[in-house]
């Protein structure tokens, strides 16, 4: 069974069409890189799959279900911005996730915070932007979800933390789950990717496995990206 299916998915912002007729099928057990330049529609696609946006045409299905309460139970979404409540401590937000998500593992979250040297008693408003992003990633990856939607998970953190975050993503998703990662930092994530999706001006221009890209084009994903999206 496919984890996620998009059928003729279209989204417009006023006169601008951010996504045009996207048809996509994501299988379980894969890490997929969602790649494209700024404004290409990556974030819009992730938002549509998470239910933050509603499509103008077409639909998205997660485990054969239309986006709604049931899909939110199995989708773990990391937005590109901080959504944490300032008044909370890290442990409060862990309690909140435990309350709302059945698949959330509080022990895993505490363990990950410890490895990242983040004190669970610290208030979120006293944390730096990078630390908050780490806390968010910890929360998202501490769920045993079917689909992880990660929008720029390594964009705001230092290179040393990036390695840990990528390791965290690799170690924490179950074998039948899939991870969609949107990022500009292709060379950093290339080693962990199974598939890549290139999005250009709202159109999906490529959906392929990393191995195919290397075999057919004799290039790395990073090199192909630079070629496809050359200015």
């Amino acid at each position, binding site marked *: 069974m496919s984890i996620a299916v998009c059928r003729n998915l279209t989204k417009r912002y006023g006169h601008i069409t951010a996504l045009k007729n996207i048809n996509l099928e994501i299988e379980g057990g894969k890490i997929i890189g969602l790649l494209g330049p700024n404004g290409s529609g990556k974030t819009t696609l992730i938002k549509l799959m998470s239910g933050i946006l*509603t499509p103008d045409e077409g639909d998205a299905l997660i485990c054969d279900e239309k986006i709604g309460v049931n899909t939110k139970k199995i989708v773990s979404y990391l937005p590109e911005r901080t959504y944490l409540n300032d008044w909370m401590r890290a442990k409060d937000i862990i309690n909140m996730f435990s309350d709302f998500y059945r698949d959330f593992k509080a022990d895993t979250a505490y363990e990950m915070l410890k490895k990242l040297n983040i004190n669970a008693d610290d208030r979120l408003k006293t944390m730096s932007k990078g630390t908050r992003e780490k806390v968010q990633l910890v929360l998202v990856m501490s769920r045993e979800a079917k689909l992880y939607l990660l929008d720029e998970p390594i964009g705001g953190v230092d290179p040393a933390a990036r390695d840990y975050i990528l390791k965290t993503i690799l170690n924490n998703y179950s074998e039948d789950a899939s991870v969609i990662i949107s990022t500009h930092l292709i060379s950093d994530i290339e080693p962990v990717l199974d598939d890549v999706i290139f999005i250009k001006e709202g159109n999906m221009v490529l959906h392929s496995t990393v191995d195919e890209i290397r075999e057919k084009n004799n290039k790395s994903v990073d090199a192909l990206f630079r070629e496809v999206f050359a200015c």
Partner: protein
Amino acid sequence: MLGKAIKYDILAQYKSFCVVYAGIIISSIFFRILDSFSDNLGRVGKVMSSVIGSIFTILVIASIFMVFILAVTRFYKNLMRDEGYLTHTLPMPTWQLILSKLITAYIFTIATIIILGFAFGIFSGEYLWLFELIEQSSYIKSEMIAEAGPGIIPLIRIGLIYAVLAPFTFLSQVYFSFSIGNLSNKNKLGFSILTYFGVNCVNQILGFIFISIGAFNSNLITNSVYTATDDKAVLSELSSIFNGYMILFLLVPIALYILANYIFTKKLNLE
């Protein structure tokens, strides 16, 4: 899930309320102490007592406004700003998300009324005024009936129902306005505020039409208010008019709540 959402809404707001509640209680206690000794303290004591009295009044007004300001800002921040990225991905239906905000607003309204009742008791020195009021309610009721006729009771009852429904009326307009504002790609807040004024205007016009129709269909207009010498009959007529208006007063907020839920569910546009 609804209960959990209410729990986190209360947790997010209770500290702000506690500060104001503490201020109200402390200022009422200080006022009572200073007022008791005002004769001995002289002019300074009187000045201090009036300053504390003013602080108390300001805090009382602030607490009433705060209930509504926090209800509105919490909704805006939690559903339409960055926090919405978490709120809208929680595994619960949108109607529960909106309802949790409404119930929380009612909880803080009731808490504020209780605190204010308690603080007024301290402030005035009549600590048991509320209990006395309840105790003497049957006497007050019979006095009112004797003075204004039995028509006054349904009118008071209607007034109380309106008072209970008023926060729902206000907040449903706010929620609906935000849901419309959410559709804008440029200025969601500005669009929401404009919608609120528009909805409020339509609501007022509808209310005016509804009451006018009720008045024209009653004996108040046909027999002319000016010739009606029986005040009791006038009160009875007013009760029936406002009874009819209550249908609108209840139906409009319910309709706005349903529409807000529909828009946030089907047309969510969180940028």
